[in-house]
Structure formats: C-alpha cells, structure tokens
C-alpha cells in the first residue's frame, strides 16, 4: 500500500492544488481516464467543504488529505477538525430529498450530496471534533498504471 499525505491551510486557493495532486495520483494508480473527472470533482467538493468549515470554526488549523492505493482501489480520505454535528443533519436532509427538490446549494451538505453522486463508494464520518470523508474508485490491481 502506497500512501501520499497532504496537509494544507484552509484557503480556497489550495483546493485546486489538492484536486491536481489527487488526479495525478489517481492516474498513476491506474484509475481509468473516464473516472478521473469524477475523482477531481469529488475531491474538490470534499476539500471545499472542509475549507469552508475550517474558515468558520478554526481557520488556523490545517486540513488533511490521504491518497492511497489499496487492493485495486484508489482511496481518498479528507479529514477536517471543524465541529460537524449540524453538517450530519444537513447530509441526511440532502440525501433524502427527491430529485428536483434540492435545497439551497449554499448549504454545506450539498457538496456531500454531489460526492455521493460521483463516487460509487463513499463513507462520511461526522463528529463533534471534525468530519472524515472516505471515498474510493476502482484502480489497477497492482496499484500502478502502465508506464
């Protein structure tokens, strides 16, 4: 298992960097080209949500992103340390809304709903001390794309 870890301060400008790193590693791990846009968007959504939460609650704390290849899957974990009790409720509300009845996109849970629509494997672990979003996509079995 190879892991790349990245921490960045809660600035919107760094979200693009996180997207680019995630896409580059996904490609190297053997994720199909047709899925790379989904990886890029889902990682961007997770990092944007984390940045917004940190700017609200703890702007001085960094956000952590882990990228790993794990038994034929490319896995990304985005972890923040902002309180997320209210976000859990928003996530439940957003994901239970019927199509076309979505709430205001400015709600924090909207980004998570987008992630849920993009990655076939998503787990959200909200908690009083922060949120952890784990998502994965199929990758090459040996963890490395052909050279």
């Amino acid at each position: 298992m190879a892991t790349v870890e990245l921490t960045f301060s809660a600035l919107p400008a760094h979200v693009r960097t996180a997207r680019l790193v995630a896409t580059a590693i996904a490609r190297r791990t053997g994720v199909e080209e047709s899925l790379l846009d989904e990886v890029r968007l889902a990682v961007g959504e997770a990092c944007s949500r984390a940045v917004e939460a940190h700017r609200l609650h703890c702007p001085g704390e960094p956000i952590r992103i882990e990228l790993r290849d794990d038994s034929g899957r490319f896995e990304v974990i985005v972890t923040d340390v902002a309180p997320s009790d209210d976000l859990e409720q928003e996530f439940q509300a957003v994901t239970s809304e019927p199509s076309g009845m979505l709430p205001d996109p400015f709600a924090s849970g909207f980004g998570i709903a987008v992630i849920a629509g993009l990655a076939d494997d998503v787990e959200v672990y909200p908690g009083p001390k922060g949120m952890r979003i784990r998502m994965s996509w199929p990758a090459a079995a040996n963890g490395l794309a052909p050279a």
Partner: protein
Amino acid sequence: MDLKLDHRTEDRLTIVEVEGEIDVYTAPRLRELLIDLVNKGNFHLLVNMEKVDFLDSTGLGVLVGGLKRVRAHDGSLELVCTQERILKIFRITGLTKVFGIYASVDEAKEAHGRDK
C-alpha cells in the same frame, strides 16, 4: 487555470463568457459579475460555459443565486453547455430542470427571441 470573464449585450440579452475553472476560489468573481450586471439592469443573462474546464457546487450556487436575482425582475438566466463533464453535475443535482441549457449561443438567442 484561472477564471476569465467577459460580457456583451446583444438585443436585450447579456452574454457572459466564462473560461477556466469555477470553484470555491474563483466563484466569488463570477458572483460579483452577475450581481453587478443585475444591479445595472441586465435581467436576461446567458452564461456561455463552453470554455469552462471545471465546475463544482460552489459554482452551481453562484448560478442559482444569479437565477434567483434575475427572476426577481422577471428575467432569465440560461446556459450554453455541451460538455458532458459539466452537464453531469447539473444532472446529479437535478438542476437541468431549473436552467435552460442550450447547445450554442445562437440556439439560445433564437429561443430567447421566440419568448420575447
């Protein structure tokens, strides 16, 4: 890639040209432009997204916010977009039912002319 914005008015329709990435960093600039256009009396907006490389939910929020503003003046905000990767996020969020989405500026202008 950074965000490039431009706009022009043709026959009561204000066409907003967007190029680059619309995300949490760049979306505020698009929001400011849309607010400015509405404040100056441009209530029929067409956002050309053919050169947009990336759009996330922050960008969607800006477009929905713009739509709310123009609707308050009986206006419209419609989009030009044929890129599958951008259209996908509109489909996932159900917003294809909210925005008029056209294949070209000419097609949108034609439809706008019919509705006048």
